[in-house]
C-alpha cells in the first residue's frame, strides 16, 4: 500500500504526457481559440470600399444567402497560399465570397494584390484599423467564416483553406446550409 504512494507522481506524469500526445496527434494547435461567435449573428459592421472601387462591404449585404466571409491582406503570405483555391470557388460559382482587406498600410497594396492574383470576392471592405477583424474576433489572417442565410456564423476556419479543408469540412457545411430555409 505504501509503495503505491510512491508511484503516484509517475502515474500523474504519464497522464500529462499522454494528454499532450493526444493533443499533438489531433493536429489542432493548442493555442487555437474556439470562437464564441459560432451560432450567433455576425456582429454588424460597415466597411468602406478599397481604393478604386465603389462598393464596400456591410454585414447587411450577407442576408438571404449562404456566404463565405474571408479575411485577407496583401502582406499575408498564408493568404496567397489559399488564393488560387478561392479563385476556383468563384469560377465554379460554389458560394459568394465576401472579403475583408485587413490592415493594409498602403491603400494601393490591396487593389494591386488583387490585380496581380485575381479577385475572387463579391464585395470587399477595407479594414485598415481592424474594425471588422475585431468585430469577428479575429487573431490572424487568413480566417474565414461560413454565414448562413439568416446571417448567423456557423463555422470559423482559422488558417488557409486547403482543398482538404474545403472538401472535408467547409463544402459539406455550405451544402447543408444551402438546403436550410432562409
Amino acid at each position, binding site marked *: 500500500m505504501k509503495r503505491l504512494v510512491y508511484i503516484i507522481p509517475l502515474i500523474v506524469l504519464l497522464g500529462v504526457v499522454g494528454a499532450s500526445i493526444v493533443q499533438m496527434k489531433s493536429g489542432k494547435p493548442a493555442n487555437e481559440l474556439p470562437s*464564441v461567435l459560432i451560432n450567433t449573428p455576425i456582429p454588424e459592421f460597415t466597411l468602406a470600399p478599397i481604393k478604386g472601387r465603389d462598393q464596400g462591404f456591410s454585414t447587411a449585404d450577407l442576408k438571404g444567402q449562404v456566404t463565405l466571409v474571408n479575411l485577407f491582406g496583401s502582406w499575408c503570405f498564408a493568404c496567397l497560399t489559399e488564393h488560387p483555391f478561392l479563385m476556383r470557388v468563384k469560377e465554379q460559382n460554389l458560394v459568394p465570397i465576401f472579403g475583408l482587406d485587413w490592415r493594409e498600410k498602403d491603400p494601393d497594396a490591396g487593389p494591386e494584390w488583387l490585380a496581380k492574383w485575381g479577385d475572387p470576392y463579391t464585395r470587399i471592405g477595407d479594414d485598415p484599423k*481592424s474594425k471588422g477583424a*475585431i*468585430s469577428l*474576433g479575429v487573431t*490572424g489572417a487568413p480566417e474565414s467564416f461560413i454565414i448562413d442565410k439568416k446571417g448567423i456564423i456557423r463555422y470559423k476556419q482559422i488558417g488557409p483553406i486547403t482543398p482538404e479543408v474545403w472538401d472535408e469540412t467547409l463544402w459539406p457545411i455550405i451544402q447543408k446550409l444551402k438546403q436550410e430555409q432562409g
Partner: protein
Amino acid sequence: MKKLFLAFMVMFVALSLNGQASAIEPDEILADPALEMRAREVSKQLRCVVCQNQSIDDSNAELARDMRLLVRDRMLAGDSNQNVLDYMVDRYGDYVLLEPPLKASTMLLWYGPFILIVLGLIGVVFYYRKQPKGAQPGSEASAELSSEERAKLKSVLSDNNTDSGNNQ
C-alpha cells in the same frame, strides 16, 4: 552597507510601481484626461490576443494597438468600462480578459491552489501523527533496534531481494 541596501529597496519599489512601460503611442491618447484614464484601466484588463501574456496596454502588436484605439472609440461614443469589456468578451470570449471571471467553469482555476494547499496540510498532519513520539532520528529511542524490529528488517530486506529478482 545598510544605506546601500535601503537605496536599492527604494529603487526597486519605485520601479515596480512605475515599471510597466505602456506601449501606448502619443497619437492614441485622448484629449479628455478622465476618459484616457478609463481607457488605460480597461486596456490593462484586456489580453493582447496575439501575444497571449500581455495586456493590450503593454503590447506593441498592431492588433493590440487597433484594440486600444477601438476601446477609446467606444468610450468616446459613450460606452462604460463594462460595456467595452463586454464588447470584447462577446467577440473573443473570456480569454480576452487577463483575469478570468469567477464562473462554474473556472472554479477549479480559482480555488484549485487552495484545495491543493489544504490537501497538502492534511497530508503533513497525518505524516507527523503517525510517527511515534521520540522516534525522531538521533534521539536515543531510535538509536538501537529491538529484536522485534531486527526480525522485521531482515524479512523486508529478503523481500526486496526476491522483488528485484522478479523484475529482471
